[in-house]
């Protein structure tokens, strides 16, 4: 098994490196770069050359790449072209805010999905199944931003119950109650966004298990439905479901871009969208590298989890 895991890690590294090269190239060919931001057309060529030399932009491309990569590994993410702020400092404020929103929402959606998916899958074509499957089929088609607009209209404008901009009211940054009031709507939106696809996944996984031969055998031996469900089916359904957790890792950074933007939540989402609109390449590229690395790590994690909990794969490796 150790060999398998090692092999997986070794194939993940070149992919991360490739993505950094891709980002660096994109940044290099962007129509507007860090040098343009630091200079202005009135400067003489010598001054521009001096600035270039100071920041190492006169070096050959591959050396620039290695310096950039070295910076990445040491947490030096460079500076925003627009605000001149350190990206690492900005992200260290924003990522925790996104975490606070996405992590509880994903966990809630995940547990709800397991319960509802198992319920639907084990009551195939009955009322419960039809309701749950109908809900997830419609839910998948609902744009998350439209759902949040609906919430804002009902609870924000009509009932005037909840605030819908930002994370705290001005002057109440320390109040937990105020934070919770801001938290409800984006949280609900995210749960609703994550839920349908997860229900579908658990449901179809349950259906597959119920059509397996071992269920038939158990039925032939007169096992009760409850016994089959909890002793046998559950275990097998939960295998792929647990490994799906790994794939949720990148959501921690990019899972709420739209929702955060609609509610003005000070997380990674609005930061990224603003960078895109302001052509702030360094920020965009850092987020690209960060989120893709998380995807690769997440896939790695889910393979390793699979390997750890499924004895069949453990023996194969």
């Amino acid at each position, binding site marked *: 098994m150790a060999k398998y895991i090692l092999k997986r890690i070794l194939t993940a590294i070149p*992919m991360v490196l*490739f*993505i950094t090269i*891709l980002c660096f190239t*994109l940044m290099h*060919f*962007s*129509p507007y770069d860090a040098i343009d931001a630091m200079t202005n057309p009135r400067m003489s060529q010598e001054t521009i050359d001096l600035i270039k030399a100071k920041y190492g932009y006169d070096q050959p491309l591959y050396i620039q790449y290695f310096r950039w990569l070295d910076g990445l590994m040491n947490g030096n993410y460079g500076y925003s072209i627009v605000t001149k702020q350190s990206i690492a400092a900005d992200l260290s404020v924003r990522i925790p805010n996104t975490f606070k929103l996405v992590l509880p929402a994903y966990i809630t959606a995940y547990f709800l999905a397991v319960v509802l998916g198992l319920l639907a899958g084990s009551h*195939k074509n009955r009322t419960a199944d039809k309701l749950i499957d*109908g809900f997830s*089929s*419609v839910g*998948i*088609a*609902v*744009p*998350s*931003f*439209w759902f949040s*607009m*609906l919430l*804002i*209209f009902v609870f924000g*404008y009509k009932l005037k119950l909840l605030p819908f901009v930002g994370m705290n009211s001005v002057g109440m940054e320390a109040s937990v109650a105020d934070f919770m009031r801001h938290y409800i709507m984006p949280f609900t939106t995210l749960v609703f966004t994550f839920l349908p696809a997860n229900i579908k996944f658990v449901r179809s996984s349950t259906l597959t298990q119920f*059509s397996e031969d071992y269920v038939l055998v158990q039925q032939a031996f007169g096992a009760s439905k409850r016994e089959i469900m909890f002793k046998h089916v559950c275990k097998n359904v939960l295998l792929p479901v647990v490994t799906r957790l790994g794939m949720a890792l*990148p959501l921690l950074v*990019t899972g709420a*871009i*739209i929702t955060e*933007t*609609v509610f003005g939540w000070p997380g990674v989402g609005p930061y*990224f*969208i603003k960078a*895109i*609109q302001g*052509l702030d390449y360094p920020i*965009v*590229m850092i*987020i*690209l590298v960060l*989120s*893709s690395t998380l*995807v*690769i790590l997440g*896939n790695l994690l889910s393979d390793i989890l699979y390997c750890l909990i499924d004895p069949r794969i453990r023996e194969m490796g």
Partner: protein
Amino acid sequence: MDSVILVLKHDKAAVLSLILLGIIILFALIAPLLPVDPNATDVINRLKSPSLTHLFGTDEVGRDYFARVIYGGRVSLLVGFLAMLTSLTIGVAVGTISGFCGGIIDAILMRIVDVLHSIPWMILVTVVSIFLKPGLKSIILVIGLFTWMEIARLVRAETLSLKEREFVLYAKFSGVGVLTIILRHIIPAVFPTIIVSATTSMANAIMTESSLSFLGVGIQQPMSSWGSLLQDAQGTMQNNFFMALIPGLLIIITIFSFNKLGNLLRVYVEPKVMNDEKE
């Protein structure tokens, strides 16, 4: 075909959604023939509620909202359709070539798929969109060029097993060229998969387009799609919720229907699925 009719008999939601989808597509197609103009402003009749002259009311500069919604649907469906065609073409080409040729070509193409797949779609699409001038063409390109990876994987897997079948082996031995084999033998055989992917791909493309337009990095004024109509509606939502409601509902109906259509086609091309569902 019988199995499809059987499914339709049991699934009222599918019948209804297909009818609605038909109506939406029909309106999008005949829009230029209708006596409505999405850009004619009428400052006196601003933000009117729905009435007989303006079925969906008017927006903040007095444009007929019914016309704007129809023309918005035209843009959304057009983007969805063309993006789907682009991504399907690339996906099928990469999938068949990769599966059929194998070896180094397969390795390289699949690594590219892996890399593109590991960048979250939202990030990938927005990043690429800043390198192109925003507008209809670039949004189609961006969605089409970066959503083909799933299709390529599916098609590749099928090609791998088709490659070993007698009719392909026979063609190979009798000296038929690679391109001809792919076009004449492989693609017709994977066609069912392609058709099913097409509906999912269309639904996804419409969703992606509306999200991008809503965030302001998609379709630009004066053209509008359902997503950008929603972005506009966000500002006046407090008093005119109607304007936010309609494009949203249309997006939901369209995507839901394309997904339903995909399921129906799956039943049609793989009758086995049907037998499983029936028990």
